[in-house]
């Protein structure tokens, strides 16, 4: 029987009376790597902040490794490794100091030696061992992303939350970080937030498609993104669609095959070259 490590039920969040997350529910099983996909402003970071316990939901429940985030906050947080968006580091600390600090905060690495060993192990895994004595403030963006990844995995938490792990990186660094995440995904349950379709294709087994605060589709990558190599464009009906209204995603992004893909969701719309798809959500994946 598969174990559910992350479970969200009816999650909602309002800011100033405006509901930005509207009853999102999903589950991630042990060993799965899921991509939370959506355009900027879809609510990915808000969901991530709620999952990390840094922002309270207006309603709904979050369970991490079987622990309710509200009822057993400490145990739930202990099971979680969180990588926030780029730049959220203390520039004055060295890499080793920062990783030791995160190890101590995590509560999973008892003793000074334990913390030191965990910090060095995480640095080895993420290939930042050569900058252990460098202040974070002077590191390149690529190194910084990897240090943040190392900080998320320090102490070996079973669930990882990675918020836009390749944001702002150059193509080579993107490939490096993706390879790293794919490596980590072999032994951990990971959820990645991104607006880059190819990122989900490259490292995730599952995708959760978010638009305007609603989860409009979820499923395996092959179910959701069926674009054969031979075709430049395709429309695919989303298999597991919620009852959300019309949604436009319009995210253009570089893919791992150095082509362009466009993600576009439509309901009851006619587009040139596409069939009328009344009543369903359709995803258009196009290379250019």
């Amino acid at each position, binding site marked *: 029987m598969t174990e559910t490590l992350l479970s969200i039920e009816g999650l909602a969040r*309002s800011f100033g009376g405006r509901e930005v997350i509207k009853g999102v529910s999903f589950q991630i099983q042990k060993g799965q790597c899921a991509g939370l996909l959506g355009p900027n402003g879809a609510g990915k970071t808000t969901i991530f*902040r709620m999952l*990390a*316990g*840094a*922002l*309270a*939901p*207006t*309603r709904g429940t979050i369970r991490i490794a079987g622990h309710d985030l*509200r009822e057993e*906050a*400490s*145990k739930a*947080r*202990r099971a*979680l490794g*969180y990588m*926030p*968006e780029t*730049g*959220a*580091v*203390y*520039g*004055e*600390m060295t890499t080793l*100091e920062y990783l030791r*600090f*995160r190890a*101590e*905060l*995590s*509560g999973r690495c008892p003793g000074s030696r334990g913390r030191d060993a965990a910090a060095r192990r995480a640095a080895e895994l993420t290939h930042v061992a050569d900058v252990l004595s460098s202040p974070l403030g002077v590191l390149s963006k690529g190194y910084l992303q990897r240090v943040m990844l190392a*900080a998320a995995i320090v102490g070996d938490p079973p669930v990882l939350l990675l918020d836009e792990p390749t944001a702002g990186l150059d193509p080579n660094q993107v490939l490096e970080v993706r390879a790293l995440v794919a490596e980590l995904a072999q032994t951990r349950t990971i959820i990645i937030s991104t607006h880059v379709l190819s990122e989900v294709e490259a490292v995730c087994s599952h995708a959760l498609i978010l638009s305007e605060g609603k989860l409009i589709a979820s499923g395996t990558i092959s179910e959701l993104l069926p674009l054969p190599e031979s075709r430049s464009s395709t429309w695919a009906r989303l298999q597991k669609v919620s009852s959300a209204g019309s949604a436009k995603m319009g995210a253009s992004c570089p893919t791992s095959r150095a082509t362009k893909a466009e993600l576009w969701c439509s309901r009851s719309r006619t587009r040139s070259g596409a069939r009328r798809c009344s009543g369903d959500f359709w995803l258009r994946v196009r290379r250019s």
Partner: protein
Amino acid sequence: MSGFFAILKRELLSLWVTPLAWVLLTIFLFLEGSIFNTILLHFSAMPSIDPDSSPMSAFLGQNSLLLAITLLLICPALSMRTFAEEKRQKTLDILLASPVSAAALVLGKYVALLLTYCAFWLPTLLYAWVLRDTDIDWAALATGYLGIFLLGSSSLALGVLMSALAPSQIVALMLASSLEFGLFVLGLGEYIFDSGFGQELGAYVSMTNLLDEMSRGIVDTRRIVLHTSLTAWALFVCVAWIEGQRSDA
């Protein structure tokens, strides 16, 4: 209190690795050194010395207007970045997402500030050493430093709270300084009102009275209760704010 020492160590590092603490320490010691020098010149020019007064008690309390003003600047400047900087750097989410209690988070940061504040005052013990051959009332010296500690502890706690509530360091500095200045002015009510509630309230909250009495060896428990309560209240509200970020909708 898991995570308390991690927060404490990080906060001390961030205070002392960056120039902030060193710049403030330099300004502080320059001001305090100047005040002490003026006091020594004043005492050396006096034909006879009042038995109730000594250079150290004058330094710790009887020039308390200058001292209070110094504290009004130093404490808000030390505490302004506590949470405001975490918000600016977006690192607060990392702390909120960690299994560290709100109390450990706030106390870790606060104790680091308090230790830094004590470190600021540590070099001034040399002044007592310089005057070791004179008739120093060591008990009064100890209570004088206790007064300084009480005033600093409540000022820093209010500063930490303002840093949590303010959107930026500069706003935190302005809010904390205004609050401190308000309390300072409230204390002047003692001299404004001849009698009655206003006069009593002013005398009770007066920073200058606290320092003056403590430097003479007079320990008024009401003042200890006031500053301890103010500290506890500010830290409690700060903990509630952190809890609110995590659990309140």
